[in-house]
């Protein structure tokens, strides 16, 4: 599904993908570009089952492209080791951030959120990183609001989702290695 839109702004485009479009084009429509997009989409549809395509979208828990980079750099046991270490470290960051918030220590909240943005995005936990980003932004201006409190609370759930997403990916890699190796 391609969104045809008069809004060519970057933020607008991301919203379409979030809402379930596969691509977007701004009007007026250039016919050769439209043909290219349609060809690209039909190739993608042929290559991937629908459920998988949904998981690969912008709002996905994990960014598989980031994780796949790890396989180019490290062997499988090291990839597992690195990711498990991240999951442990980031769990501690989430706990500390929530404790900092409970104590109204907003500098600590800001520092931990900032580090979590970089660590999570680097380790493929894209939605955890996005949530940390919204907490970093709010920590300077909006820390008393209900919305901010909800974001801080949601970190636990989002971290759980990252754990599940990353472990699933690791299991997929193991599965591929076994079926490829035997």
């Amino acid at each position, binding site marked *: 599904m391609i969104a045809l839109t008069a809004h060519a702004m970057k933020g607008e485009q991301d919203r379409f993908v979030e809402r379930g479009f596969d691509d977007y084009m701004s009007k007026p429509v250039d016919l050769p570009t439209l043909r290219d997009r349609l060809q690209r989409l039909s190739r993608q549809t042929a290559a991937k089952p629908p459920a998988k395509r949904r998981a690969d979208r912008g709002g996905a828990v994990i960014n598989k492209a980031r994780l796949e980079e790890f396989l*180019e750099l490290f062997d499988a046991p090291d990839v597992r080791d690195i990711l498990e270490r991240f999951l442990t470290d980031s769990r501690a960051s989430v706990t500390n951030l929530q404790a900092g918030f409970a104590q109204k220590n907003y500098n600590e909240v800001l520092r931990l959120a900032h580090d979590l943005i970089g660590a999570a995005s680097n380790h493929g936990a894209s939605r955890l990183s996005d949530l940390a980003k919204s907490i970093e932004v709010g920590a300077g201006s909006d820390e008393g609001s209900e919305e901010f409190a909800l974001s801080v609370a949601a970190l636990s759930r989002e971290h759980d989702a990252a754990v599940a997403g990353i472990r699933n990916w690791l299991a997929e890699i193991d599965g591929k290695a076994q079926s490829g190796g035997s």
Partner: protein
Amino acid sequence: MALGTILLVEDDASVRTLVERALSVKGFTVFAAENGERARQIMQASDPAAVLLDINLPDVDGIELCEQFRAETKKEMPIVFLTSSDTSDIVIKCLEAGGDDFVVKSAGVKAIINRVESWTVKRGYSDLAKTRAQKLERLRAALK
């Protein structure tokens, strides 16, 4: 194959470990520092081929640390900033402080490693360090 030494300054343990391991895989020797104080000690004791420098450090602003490196040492190694965002005011500050480049952490570990390689291997900085070391070696030999 040794490509030279990289000083990595990053307070977040998981990012530090990840980047350190990736640089080692690529053949770099890595000195990792979790804060500005440790980074200063390493800088005094070594001659890195490049520096990867986080902006948010617990004890000092990375931008200030970069200015100190440039002011206090005669070393001309490339300094690449690690940032969480690429807003233009941050980028300008990095470059004004004597930094050479920046890479956004969300671009991923491969992008970070590629940036270090392009500032060292491709531009010959690690060769420069090697030539310097060889010259020193010859001088030492001549003095004996």
